[in-house]
Protein backbone atom coordinates (compact mmCIF):
# COMPACT_ATOMS: atom_id res chain seq x y z
CA UNK A 1 0.00 0.00 0.00
CA UNK A 2 1.10 3.57 -0.67
CA UNK A 3 2.55 5.30 2.40
CA UNK A 4 -0.31 7.20 4.08
CA UNK A 5 1.40 10.56 3.58
CA UNK A 6 1.90 9.85 -0.15
CA UNK A 7 -1.78 9.13 -0.81
CA UNK A 8 -3.90 11.50 -2.79
CA UNK A 9 -6.91 12.83 -0.95
CA UNK A 10 -9.17 10.80 -3.23
CA UNK A 11 -7.03 7.70 -2.66
CA UNK A 12 -7.05 8.15 1.10
CA UNK A 13 -10.82 8.58 1.05
CA UNK A 14 -11.21 5.31 -0.85
CA UNK A 15 -8.80 3.52 1.51
CA UNK A 16 -10.71 4.84 4.52
CA UNK A 17 -13.97 3.71 2.95
CA UNK A 18 -12.59 0.21 2.44
CA UNK A 19 -11.22 0.26 6.03
CA UNK A 20 -7.70 -0.44 4.70
CA UNK A 21 -6.48 2.34 6.94
CA UNK A 22 -8.09 4.07 9.90
CA UNK A 23 -8.46 7.80 10.24
CA UNK A 24 -6.32 7.63 13.39
CA UNK A 25 -3.51 5.87 11.47
CA UNK A 26 -3.73 8.38 8.65
CA UNK A 27 -3.66 11.29 11.10
CA UNK A 28 -0.78 9.82 13.15
CA UNK A 29 1.27 9.40 9.96
CA UNK A 30 0.81 13.09 9.17
CA UNK A 31 1.47 14.22 12.75
CA UNK A 32 4.70 12.21 12.71
CA UNK A 33 5.73 13.81 9.43
CA UNK A 34 4.98 17.27 10.82
CA UNK A 35 7.03 16.56 13.93
CA UNK A 36 9.97 15.47 11.78
CA UNK A 37 9.89 18.16 9.09
CA UNK A 38 8.03 21.20 10.36
CA UNK A 39 10.89 22.46 12.56
CA UNK A 40 12.80 22.95 9.29
CA UNK A 41 10.07 23.92 6.78
CA UNK A 42 7.97 26.01 9.22
CA UNK A 43 4.81 25.35 7.22
CA UNK A 44 2.65 25.33 10.35
CA UNK A 45 2.46 28.19 12.86
CA UNK A 46 0.33 26.13 15.25
CA UNK A 47 -0.21 22.38 15.32
CA UNK A 48 -3.22 20.80 17.02
CA UNK A 49 -2.30 17.11 17.43
CA UNK A 50 -4.71 16.38 20.27
CA UNK A 51 -7.61 17.99 18.46
CA UNK A 52 -6.65 16.14 15.26
CA UNK A 53 -6.58 12.74 17.00
CA UNK A 54 -9.94 13.39 18.65
CA UNK A 55 -11.41 14.33 15.26
CA UNK A 56 -9.83 11.22 13.72
CA UNK A 57 -11.35 9.00 16.40
CA UNK A 58 -14.75 10.55 15.74
CA UNK A 59 -14.18 9.96 12.02
CA UNK A 60 -13.40 6.29 12.59
CA UNK A 61 -16.57 5.95 14.68
CA UNK A 62 -18.60 7.56 11.90
CA UNK A 63 -17.03 5.35 9.23
CA UNK A 64 -17.71 2.25 11.34
CA UNK A 65 -21.39 3.20 11.41
CA UNK A 66 -21.40 3.79 7.67
CA UNK A 67 -21.89 7.52 8.22
CA UNK A 68 -18.84 8.77 6.33
CA UNK A 69 -19.16 12.15 4.63
CA UNK A 70 -17.17 13.77 1.82
CA UNK A 71 -14.02 14.32 3.92
CA UNK A 72 -14.45 12.03 6.91
CA UNK A 73 -11.01 11.33 8.38
CA UNK A 74 -9.05 13.44 5.84
CA UNK A 75 -6.18 15.38 7.51
CA UNK A 76 -5.89 18.97 6.33
CA UNK A 77 -3.90 22.13 7.06
CA UNK A 78 -5.91 25.32 7.58
CA UNK A 79 -4.33 28.59 6.52
CA UNK A 80 -3.93 30.72 9.63
CA UNK A 81 -6.20 33.34 8.12
CA UNK A 82 -9.36 31.26 8.77
CA UNK A 83 -10.79 31.75 12.24
CA UNK A 84 -10.99 28.44 14.08
CA UNK A 85 -13.03 28.40 17.28
CA UNK A 86 -10.77 27.83 20.27
CA UNK A 87 -7.58 27.59 18.17
CA UNK A 88 -5.25 30.60 17.94
CA UNK A 89 -5.56 32.46 14.62
CA UNK A 90 -2.71 34.87 13.91
CA UNK A 91 -2.94 35.95 10.24
CA UNK A 92 0.85 35.71 10.43
CA UNK A 93 0.92 38.95 12.41
CA UNK A 94 2.21 40.03 15.79
CA UNK A 95 -0.94 42.07 16.23
CA UNK A 96 -3.02 38.85 16.37
CA UNK A 97 -0.27 36.77 17.97
CA UNK A 98 -2.47 35.57 20.83
CA UNK A 99 -5.93 35.93 19.28
CA UNK A 100 -8.22 32.94 19.94
CA UNK A 101 -11.42 33.29 17.91
CA UNK A 102 -14.64 32.47 19.70
CA UNK A 103 -16.19 31.41 16.38
CA UNK A 104 -15.49 29.30 13.30
CA UNK A 105 -15.12 30.60 9.75
CA UNK A 106 -17.82 29.30 7.43
CA UNK A 107 -15.32 27.56 5.13
CA UNK A 108 -13.50 25.71 7.93
CA UNK A 109 -16.89 24.95 9.50
CA UNK A 110 -18.04 23.40 6.20
CA UNK A 111 -14.94 21.18 6.21
CA UNK A 112 -15.63 20.10 9.81
CA UNK A 113 -19.27 19.40 8.88
CA UNK A 114 -17.93 17.04 6.20
CA UNK A 115 -15.71 15.19 8.66
CA UNK A 116 -12.25 16.68 8.01
CA UNK A 117 -9.39 16.44 10.53
CA UNK A 118 -7.45 19.67 11.23
CA UNK A 119 -3.72 19.14 11.75
CA UNK A 120 -2.98 22.79 12.48
CA UNK A 121 -2.76 26.33 11.18
CA UNK A 122 -0.58 26.98 8.14
CA UNK A 123 1.95 29.81 7.88
CA UNK A 124 1.35 32.73 5.50
CA UNK A 125 2.55 36.19 4.62
CA UNK A 126 1.37 38.68 7.24
CA UNK A 127 -2.32 39.41 6.58
CA UNK A 128 -1.85 37.50 3.30
CA UNK A 129 0.22 40.38 1.88
CA UNK A 130 3.17 38.95 -0.01
CA UNK A 131 4.42 36.58 -2.67
CA UNK A 132 7.18 34.78 -0.77
CA UNK A 133 5.88 33.97 2.73
CA UNK A 134 8.81 35.99 4.09
CA UNK A 135 6.63 38.68 5.73
CA UNK A 136 5.18 36.30 8.36
CA UNK A 137 5.82 37.35 11.95
CA UNK A 138 6.31 33.64 12.63
CA UNK A 139 9.24 33.21 10.27
CA UNK A 140 9.71 32.31 6.62
CA UNK A 141 8.56 28.99 5.12
CA UNK A 142 11.09 26.88 3.23
CA UNK A 143 10.07 25.53 -0.16
CA UNK A 144 10.49 21.73 -0.04
CA UNK A 145 11.88 21.85 -3.59
CA UNK A 146 15.58 22.46 -4.21
CA UNK A 147 17.44 23.60 -7.30
CA UNK A 148 19.53 20.69 -8.56
CA UNK A 149 23.07 21.10 -7.27
CA UNK A 150 22.02 23.91 -4.88
CA UNK A 151 20.68 21.97 -1.94
CA UNK A 152 21.79 24.73 0.43
CA UNK A 153 19.80 27.52 -1.23
CA UNK A 154 16.65 28.40 0.71
CA UNK A 155 13.88 28.87 -1.86
CA UNK A 156 10.59 30.56 -1.01
CA UNK A 157 7.32 28.62 -1.37
CA UNK A 158 5.53 31.64 -2.83
CA UNK A 159 2.82 33.49 -1.00
CA UNK A 160 0.73 34.37 0.62
CA UNK A 161 -0.46 30.74 1.12
CA UNK A 162 3.15 29.52 1.35
CA UNK A 163 2.64 27.36 4.44
CA UNK A 164 -0.42 25.68 2.91
CA UNK A 165 1.43 24.89 -0.34
CA UNK A 166 4.66 23.76 1.36
CA UNK A 167 2.74 21.53 3.80
CA UNK A 168 0.91 19.79 0.96
CA UNK A 169 4.03 19.45 -1.22
CA UNK A 170 6.10 18.03 1.66
CA UNK A 171 3.32 15.54 2.52
CA UNK A 172 2.49 17.21 5.84
CA UNK A 173 -1.22 17.30 4.86
CA UNK A 174 -3.40 15.78 2.13
CA UNK A 175 -4.76 19.20 1.25
CA UNK A 176 -5.07 22.68 2.70
CA UNK A 177 -7.25 25.73 2.69
CA UNK A 178 -5.78 28.87 1.18
CA UNK A 179 -6.91 32.32 0.11
CA UNK A 180 -6.17 34.33 -3.00
CA UNK A 181 -6.37 38.13 -3.28
CA UNK A 182 -3.93 38.63 -6.17
CA UNK A 183 -2.49 35.16 -6.74
CA UNK A 184 -1.95 33.84 -3.22
CA UNK A 185 -3.28 30.36 -4.01
CA UNK A 186 -2.01 29.92 -7.55
CA UNK A 187 1.53 31.32 -7.27
CA UNK A 188 2.52 29.20 -4.21
CA UNK A 189 0.85 26.15 -5.77
CA UNK A 190 2.98 26.66 -8.90
CA UNK A 191 6.15 27.24 -6.86
CA UNK A 192 5.56 24.04 -4.85
CA UNK A 193 4.50 21.74 -7.72
CA UNK A 194 0.89 21.25 -6.61
CA UNK A 195 -2.57 22.33 -7.79
CA UNK A 196 -4.67 25.16 -6.41
CA UNK A 197 -7.84 26.97 -7.43
CA UNK A 198 -9.18 30.40 -6.70
CA UNK A 199 -12.89 29.99 -7.38
CA UNK A 200 -15.26 32.67 -8.62
CA UNK A 201 -15.73 35.61 -6.25
CA UNK A 202 -18.73 34.72 -4.09
CA UNK A 203 -18.31 30.94 -4.41
CA UNK A 204 -16.81 30.52 -0.91
CA UNK A 205 -17.99 32.53 2.06
CA UNK A 206 -15.55 35.11 3.41
CA UNK A 207 -17.16 34.97 6.86
CA UNK A 208 -14.51 34.38 9.50
CA UNK A 209 -11.56 34.84 7.14
CA UNK A 210 -9.32 37.69 8.33
CA UNK A 211 -10.04 40.35 5.71
CA UNK A 212 -7.33 41.82 3.46
CA UNK A 213 -9.09 43.30 0.40
CA UNK A 214 -12.74 42.38 0.57
CA UNK A 215 -13.66 42.81 -3.10
CA UNK A 216 -10.75 40.55 -4.16
CA UNK A 217 -10.36 37.94 -1.37
CA UNK A 218 -11.53 34.41 -2.15
CA UNK A 219 -10.91 31.12 -0.35
CA UNK A 220 -9.92 28.00 -2.23
CA UNK A 221 -8.03 24.72 -1.79
CA UNK A 222 -4.51 23.53 -2.61
CA UNK A 223 -3.85 19.80 -3.05
CA UNK A 224 -1.59 17.46 -4.97
CA UNK A 225 -4.09 16.71 -7.74
CA UNK A 226 -6.76 18.67 -9.58
CA UNK A 227 -9.39 16.15 -8.49
CA UNK A 228 -8.37 16.59 -4.84
CA UNK A 229 -8.87 20.35 -5.24
CA UNK A 230 -12.29 19.68 -6.75
CA UNK A 231 -13.29 17.48 -3.79
CA UNK A 232 -12.15 20.09 -1.29
CA UNK A 233 -13.83 22.98 -3.10
CA UNK A 234 -17.07 20.99 -3.15
CA UNK A 235 -17.05 21.06 0.66
CA UNK A 236 -15.71 24.59 1.11
CA UNK A 237 -18.13 26.31 -1.29
CA UNK A 238 -21.75 27.22 -0.79
CA UNK A 239 -24.11 30.06 0.00
CA UNK A 240 -23.71 31.75 3.37
CA UNK A 241 -26.10 34.45 4.59
CA UNK A 242 -23.30 35.73 6.87
CA UNK A 243 -21.35 37.03 3.83
CA UNK A 244 -23.28 39.68 1.91
CA UNK A 245 -21.32 38.88 -1.27
CA UNK A 246 -21.82 35.10 -1.04
CA UNK A 247 -23.48 33.77 -4.19
CA UNK A 248 -26.79 32.01 -3.70
CA UNK A 249 -26.31 29.43 -6.43
CA UNK A 250 -25.96 25.63 -6.24
CA UNK A 251 -22.55 23.95 -5.87
CA UNK A 252 -22.09 21.50 -8.75
CA UNK A 253 -20.15 18.22 -8.61
CA UNK A 254 -16.70 19.67 -9.29
CA UNK A 255 -14.96 16.29 -9.01
CA UNK A 256 -17.15 14.80 -11.74
CA UNK A 257 -16.15 17.65 -14.06
CA UNK A 258 -12.49 16.59 -13.88
CA UNK A 259 -13.19 13.63 -16.18
CA UNK A 260 -15.07 15.60 -18.84
CA UNK A 261 -12.22 16.09 -21.26
CA UNK A 262 -11.70 19.11 -23.49
CA UNK A 263 -12.95 17.89 -26.86
CA UNK A 264 -14.64 20.74 -28.67
CA UNK A 265 -13.73 23.35 -26.06
CA UNK A 266 -12.41 26.69 -27.32
CA UNK A 267 -9.30 27.67 -25.36
CA UNK A 268 -8.24 31.31 -25.48
CA UNK A 269 -4.57 32.25 -25.70
CA UNK A 270 -4.26 35.93 -24.71
CA UNK A 271 -1.54 37.63 -26.73
CA UNK A 272 -0.89 40.26 -24.05
CA UNK A 273 0.35 37.54 -21.65
CA UNK A 274 3.37 36.92 -23.88
CA UNK A 275 5.37 39.50 -21.97
CA UNK A 276 8.61 41.07 -23.13
CA UNK A 277 11.37 39.19 -21.41
CA UNK A 278 9.22 36.15 -20.57
CA UNK A 279 11.74 33.39 -19.78
CA UNK A 280 12.07 30.87 -22.64
CA UNK A 281 11.24 27.99 -20.28
CA UNK A 282 7.93 29.58 -19.34
CA UNK A 283 7.07 30.32 -22.98
CA UNK A 284 7.95 26.75 -23.97
CA UNK A 285 5.78 25.31 -21.20
CA UNK A 286 2.88 27.47 -22.33
CA UNK A 287 3.34 26.24 -25.94
CA UNK A 288 3.46 22.67 -24.64
CA UNK A 289 0.20 23.20 -22.76
CA UNK A 290 -1.46 24.45 -25.96
CA UNK A 291 -0.20 21.39 -27.84
CA UNK A 292 -1.56 19.04 -25.19
CA UNK A 293 -5.02 20.61 -25.29
CA UNK A 294 -5.07 20.64 -29.08
CA UNK A 295 -4.12 16.94 -29.13
CA UNK A 296 -7.06 16.28 -26.80
CA UNK A 297 -9.47 17.89 -29.23
CA UNK A 298 -9.66 21.48 -28.00
CA UNK A 299 -9.60 24.42 -30.39
CA UNK A 300 -7.02 27.13 -29.68
CA UNK A 301 -8.18 30.71 -30.26
CA UNK A 302 -5.93 33.75 -30.05
CA UNK A 303 -7.63 36.46 -28.03
CA UNK A 304 -6.82 39.95 -26.85
CA UNK A 305 -7.19 41.23 -23.30
CA UNK A 306 -5.95 44.75 -24.02
CA UNK A 307 -5.99 46.16 -20.49
CA UNK A 308 -3.85 43.35 -19.02
CA UNK A 309 -0.80 45.54 -18.59
CA UNK A 310 -2.72 47.87 -16.29
CA UNK A 311 -3.85 45.08 -13.95
CA UNK A 312 -0.98 45.15 -11.45
CA UNK A 313 -0.96 48.92 -10.86
CA UNK A 314 -4.77 48.78 -10.56
CA UNK A 315 -4.44 46.02 -7.98
CA UNK A 316 -1.85 48.01 -6.03
CA UNK A 317 -4.36 50.81 -5.61
CA UNK A 318 -7.50 48.77 -4.94
CA UNK A 319 -5.95 46.19 -2.59
CA UNK A 320 -4.07 48.61 -0.30
CA UNK A 321 -7.09 50.94 -0.21
CA UNK A 322 -9.35 48.13 0.98
CA UNK A 323 -6.63 46.86 3.33
CA UNK A 324 -6.17 50.25 4.96
CA UNK A 325 -9.90 50.27 5.68
CA UNK A 326 -10.11 46.61 6.83
CA UNK A 327 -7.05 46.84 9.06
CA UNK A 328 -8.33 49.95 10.84
CA UNK A 329 -9.98 47.53 13.29
CA UNK A 330 -6.60 46.59 14.81
CA UNK A 331 -6.43 49.41 17.31
CA UNK A 332 -5.44 47.66 20.54
CA UNK A 333 -8.88 48.13 22.08
CA UNK A 334 -11.14 45.16 21.46
CA UNK A 335 -8.75 42.32 20.63
CA UNK A 336 -5.15 41.71 19.68
CA UNK A 337 -1.96 43.40 20.76
CA UNK A 338 -1.98 46.63 22.79
CA UNK A 339 0.97 48.94 23.36
CA UNK A 340 0.12 51.52 25.98
CA UNK A 341 0.55 55.20 25.18
CA UNK A 342 0.15 58.66 26.66
CA UNK A 343 -3.37 58.97 25.33
CA UNK A 344 -5.73 57.03 23.09
CA UNK A 345 -4.21 58.24 19.79
CA UNK A 346 -0.74 57.41 21.06
CA UNK A 347 -2.00 53.95 22.09
CA UNK A 348 -3.36 53.37 18.58
CA UNK A 349 -0.16 54.56 16.89
CA UNK A 350 2.20 52.57 19.11
CA UNK A 351 0.03 49.45 18.92
CA UNK A 352 -0.11 49.54 15.13
CA UNK A 353 3.60 50.35 14.72
CA UNK A 354 4.55 47.45 16.99
CA UNK A 355 1.92 45.03 15.71
CA UNK A 356 2.22 45.38 11.93
CA UNK A 357 5.28 44.34 9.92
CA UNK A 358 7.00 46.47 7.29
CA UNK A 359 5.03 45.36 4.21
CA UNK A 360 1.67 45.68 5.97
CA UNK A 361 2.55 49.18 7.22
CA UNK A 362 3.64 50.13 3.70
CA UNK A 363 0.37 48.96 2.16
CA UNK A 364 -1.75 50.66 4.82
CA UNK A 365 0.07 53.93 4.13
CA UNK A 366 -0.39 53.59 0.35
CA UNK A 367 -4.06 52.78 0.88
CA UNK A 368 -4.56 55.67 3.26
CA UNK A 369 -2.92 58.04 0.78
CA UNK A 370 -4.94 56.96 -2.28
CA UNK A 371 -8.18 57.29 -0.31
CA UNK A 372 -7.29 60.64 1.25
CA UNK A 373 -9.08 63.87 0.38
CA UNK A 374 -7.87 65.34 -2.90
CA UNK A 375 -6.37 62.10 -4.24
CA UNK A 376 -9.37 59.77 -4.22
CA UNK A 377 -10.47 60.52 -7.79
CA UNK A 378 -6.97 60.44 -9.26
CA UNK A 379 -6.09 57.07 -7.74
CA UNK A 380 -8.94 55.05 -6.31
CA UNK A 381 -11.75 56.05 -8.66
CA UNK A 382 -9.39 55.74 -11.63
CA UNK A 383 -8.37 52.24 -10.51
CA UNK A 384 -12.01 51.19 -10.17
CA UNK A 385 -12.63 52.39 -13.73
CA UNK A 386 -9.63 50.49 -15.11
CA UNK A 387 -10.82 47.47 -13.15
CA UNK A 388 -14.14 47.71 -15.00
CA UNK A 389 -12.23 47.73 -18.31
CA UNK A 390 -10.21 44.65 -17.29
CA UNK A 391 -13.41 42.83 -16.45
CA UNK A 392 -14.94 43.95 -19.78
CA UNK A 393 -11.96 42.44 -21.62
CA UNK A 394 -12.84 39.06 -20.12
CA UNK A 395 -16.60 39.48 -20.67
CA UNK A 396 -15.91 40.02 -24.36
CA UNK A 397 -13.51 37.06 -24.52
CA UNK A 398 -16.21 34.68 -23.26
CA UNK A 399 -18.09 35.25 -26.52
CA UNK A 400 -15.23 33.50 -28.30
CA UNK A 401 -13.77 31.01 -25.82
CA UNK A 402 -14.76 28.64 -23.00
CA UNK A 403 -11.55 28.96 -20.96
CA UNK A 404 -8.16 30.67 -21.16
CA UNK A 405 -4.68 29.13 -20.84
CA UNK A 406 -1.74 31.14 -19.48
CA UNK A 407 1.45 30.52 -17.50
CA UNK A 408 0.84 30.58 -13.73
CA UNK A 409 3.94 32.58 -12.81
CA UNK A 410 6.70 34.44 -14.68
CA UNK A 411 9.42 32.33 -12.99
CA UNK A 412 10.06 29.29 -10.83
CA UNK A 413 10.55 29.67 -7.07
CA UNK A 414 13.25 32.18 -6.15
CA UNK A 415 15.69 32.40 -3.27
CA UNK A 416 14.76 33.98 0.05
CA UNK A 417 17.26 36.80 -0.41
CA UNK A 418 16.24 37.62 -4.00
CA UNK A 419 13.72 40.36 -4.92
CA UNK A 420 13.53 41.67 -1.34
CA UNK A 421 14.91 45.18 -1.94
CA UNK A 422 12.30 46.46 -4.37
CA UNK A 423 8.59 46.12 -3.51
CA UNK A 424 7.59 46.58 -7.16
CA UNK A 425 9.83 43.68 -8.32
CA UNK A 426 8.10 41.45 -5.77
CA UNK A 427 4.67 42.60 -6.96
CA UNK A 428 5.45 41.40 -10.53
CA UNK A 429 5.10 37.79 -9.33
CA UNK A 430 1.35 38.19 -9.66
CA UNK A 431 1.36 39.47 -13.24
CA UNK A 432 -0.56 36.44 -14.61
CA UNK A 433 -2.81 35.82 -11.63
CA UNK A 434 -4.04 39.23 -10.53
CA UNK A 435 -6.46 39.76 -13.45
CA UNK A 436 -8.69 36.92 -12.20
CA UNK A 437 -9.12 38.65 -8.83
CA UNK A 438 -9.92 41.99 -10.44
CA UNK A 439 -12.48 40.37 -12.77
CA UNK A 440 -13.83 37.99 -10.10
CA UNK A 441 -13.32 34.88 -12.27
CA UNK A 442 -11.98 31.43 -11.34
CA UNK A 443 -8.33 30.47 -11.91
CA UNK A 444 -6.57 27.14 -11.42
CA UNK A 445 -2.83 26.49 -11.26
CA UNK A 446 -1.67 23.01 -12.24
CA UNK A 447 1.89 21.64 -12.21
CA UNK A 448 2.95 21.04 -15.81
CA UNK A 449 6.73 20.86 -16.04
CA UNK A 450 10.11 21.71 -14.54
CA UNK A 451 12.74 24.30 -15.25
CA UNK A 452 16.37 23.47 -16.10
CA UNK A 453 17.19 23.21 -12.38
CA UNK A 454 14.33 20.79 -11.72
CA UNK A 455 11.95 23.27 -10.09
CA UNK A 456 8.23 22.93 -10.80
CA UNK A 457 6.44 25.25 -13.21
CA UNK A 458 2.70 25.68 -13.46
CA UNK A 459 0.09 26.58 -16.04
CA UNK A 460 -3.04 28.55 -15.25
CA UNK A 461 -6.57 28.00 -16.55
CA UNK A 462 -9.01 30.91 -16.27
CA UNK A 463 -12.75 30.41 -16.63
CA UNK A 464 -16.11 32.14 -16.83
CA UNK A 465 -17.76 33.26 -13.59
CA UNK A 466 -19.21 30.22 -11.78
CA UNK A 467 -17.90 27.84 -14.44
CA UNK A 468 -15.24 26.15 -12.31
CA UNK A 469 -16.35 22.88 -13.90
CA UNK A 470 -14.79 23.76 -17.26
CA UNK A 471 -11.68 25.00 -15.44
CA UNK A 472 -11.39 21.64 -13.66
CA UNK A 473 -11.95 19.77 -16.95
CA UNK A 474 -9.15 21.69 -18.69
CA UNK A 475 -6.85 21.49 -15.67
CA UNK A 476 -7.32 17.74 -15.43
CA UNK A 477 -6.54 17.33 -19.12
CA UNK A 478 -3.28 19.28 -18.65
CA UNK A 479 -2.50 17.21 -15.55
CA UNK A 480 -3.02 13.92 -17.41
CA UNK A 481 -0.94 15.05 -20.38
CA UNK A 482 1.88 16.45 -18.24
CA UNK A 483 2.15 13.34 -16.08
CA UNK A 484 3.96 15.40 -13.46
CA UNK A 485 5.56 12.89 -11.07
CA UNK A 486 8.65 14.74 -9.83
CA UNK A 487 8.99 14.94 -6.05
CA UNK A 488 10.37 17.66 -3.79
CA UNK A 489 13.66 17.04 -1.97
CA UNK A 490 12.10 17.62 1.45
CA UNK A 491 9.10 15.40 2.10
CA UNK A 492 7.75 12.92 4.59
CA UNK A 493 9.44 9.50 4.48
CA UNK A 494 12.02 10.75 1.95
Amino acid at each position, binding site marked *: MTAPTDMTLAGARAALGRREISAVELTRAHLGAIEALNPRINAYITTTPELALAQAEAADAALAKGEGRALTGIPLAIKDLFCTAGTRTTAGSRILGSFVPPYESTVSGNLLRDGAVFLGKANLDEFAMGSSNTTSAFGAVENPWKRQGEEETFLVPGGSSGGSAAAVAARLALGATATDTGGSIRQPAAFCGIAGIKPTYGRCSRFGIVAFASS*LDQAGPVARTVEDCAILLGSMAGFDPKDSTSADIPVPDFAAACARGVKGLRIGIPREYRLDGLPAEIAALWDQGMAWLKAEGAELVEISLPHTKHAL*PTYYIVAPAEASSNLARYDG*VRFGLRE*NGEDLKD*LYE*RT*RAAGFGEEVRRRIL*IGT*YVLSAGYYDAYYLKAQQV*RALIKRDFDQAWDKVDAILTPATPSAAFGRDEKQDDPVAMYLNDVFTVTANLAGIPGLAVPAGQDAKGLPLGLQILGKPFDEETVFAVGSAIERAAGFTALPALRAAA
Partner: protein
Amino acid sequence: MSLDTATVRRVASLARIRVEEDELPRLEAELNGILGWIEQLQAVDTSSVEPMAGGGNQALRMREDRVTDGDIQEKVLANAPDRAGAFFAVPKVVE
Protein backbone atom coordinates in the same frame (compact mmCIF):
# COMPACT_ATOMS: atom_id res chain seq x y z
CA MET B 1 2.44 63.31 -7.91
CA SER B 2 5.27 62.80 -5.47
CA LEU B 3 5.12 62.64 -1.69
CA ASP B 4 7.25 64.91 0.46
CA THR B 5 8.27 64.18 4.04
CA ALA B 6 5.47 66.26 5.52
CA THR B 7 2.87 64.32 3.51
CA VAL B 8 4.31 60.96 4.60
CA ARG B 9 4.11 62.17 8.20
CA ARG B 10 0.50 63.27 7.70
CA VAL B 11 -0.54 59.99 6.02
CA ALA B 12 1.06 57.99 8.85
CA SER B 13 -0.91 60.06 11.33
CA LEU B 14 -4.15 59.47 9.38
CA ALA B 15 -3.37 55.74 9.37
CA ARG B 16 -2.60 55.86 13.12
CA ILE B 17 0.83 54.28 12.64
CA ARG B 18 3.73 55.74 14.62
CA VAL B 19 6.69 56.45 12.34
CA GLU B 20 10.01 57.53 13.83
CA GLU B 21 11.74 60.51 12.21
CA ASP B 22 14.70 58.41 11.08
CA GLU B 23 12.36 56.01 9.22
CA LEU B 24 10.80 58.78 7.12
CA PRO B 25 13.41 59.09 4.33
CA ARG B 26 13.35 55.39 3.43
CA LEU B 27 9.55 55.21 3.67
CA GLU B 28 9.24 58.29 1.48
CA ALA B 29 11.47 56.70 -1.18
CA GLU B 30 9.56 53.39 -1.09
CA LEU B 31 6.14 55.00 -1.29
CA ASN B 32 7.26 57.25 -4.14
CA GLY B 33 8.62 54.19 -5.95
CA ILE B 34 5.23 52.48 -5.72
CA LEU B 35 3.24 55.61 -6.56
CA GLY B 36 5.50 56.37 -9.53
CA TRP B 37 4.79 52.89 -10.84
CA ILE B 38 1.00 53.12 -10.47
CA GLU B 39 1.04 56.56 -12.08
CA GLN B 40 0.87 54.81 -15.49
CA LEU B 41 -2.88 54.36 -15.00
CA GLN B 42 -3.37 58.04 -15.76
CA ALA B 43 -2.68 57.18 -19.42
CA VAL B 44 -5.73 54.89 -19.68
CA ASP B 45 -8.81 56.47 -21.25
CA THR B 46 -11.60 55.87 -18.74
CA SER B 47 -14.03 58.55 -19.89
CA SER B 48 -17.62 57.36 -19.43
CA VAL B 49 -16.51 54.13 -17.71
CA GLU B 50 -18.56 53.24 -14.65
CA PRO B 51 -16.23 52.40 -11.72
CA MET B 52 -16.38 48.78 -10.57
CA ALA B 53 -16.87 48.82 -6.84
CA GLY B 54 -17.28 45.19 -5.85
CA GLY B 55 -15.95 41.79 -6.77
CA GLY B 56 -19.24 40.18 -7.74
CA ASN B 57 -22.06 40.89 -10.10
CA GLN B 58 -24.95 40.52 -7.70
CA ALA B 59 -26.75 43.32 -5.98
CA LEU B 60 -26.33 43.15 -2.24
CA ARG B 61 -29.10 41.34 -0.42
CA MET B 62 -31.34 42.92 2.18
CA ARG B 63 -31.66 41.17 5.51
CA GLU B 64 -34.56 41.05 7.87
CA ASP B 65 -34.65 44.13 10.11
CA ARG B 66 -34.18 42.56 13.52
CA VAL B 67 -31.57 42.50 16.28
CA THR B 68 -29.01 39.76 15.66
CA ASP B 69 -26.29 40.63 18.16
CA GLY B 70 -26.44 37.11 19.56
CA ASP B 71 -26.26 38.07 23.25
CA ILE B 72 -22.66 36.84 23.47
CA GLN B 73 -21.11 39.54 25.62
CA GLU B 74 -18.46 37.29 27.20
CA LYS B 75 -17.31 35.98 23.81
CA VAL B 76 -17.09 39.53 22.46
CA LEU B 77 -14.96 40.58 25.43
CA ALA B 78 -12.89 37.40 25.62
CA ASN B 79 -9.94 38.80 23.64
CA ALA B 80 -9.99 42.33 25.08
CA PRO B 81 -6.54 43.59 26.12
CA ASP B 82 -8.19 45.41 29.01
CA ARG B 83 -11.76 45.46 30.29
CA ALA B 84 -13.77 47.01 33.07
CA GLY B 85 -16.82 44.93 33.85
CA ALA B 86 -18.83 44.60 30.67
CA PHE B 87 -16.82 47.28 28.82
CA PHE B 88 -13.62 47.58 26.83
CA ALA B 89 -11.22 49.75 28.82
CA VAL B 90 -9.01 52.45 27.26
CA PRO B 91 -6.84 55.27 28.66
CA LYS B 92 -8.77 58.32 29.83
CA VAL B 93 -10.17 60.19 26.79
CA VAL B 94 -12.08 63.09 28.39
CA GLU B 95 -10.50 65.28 31.05
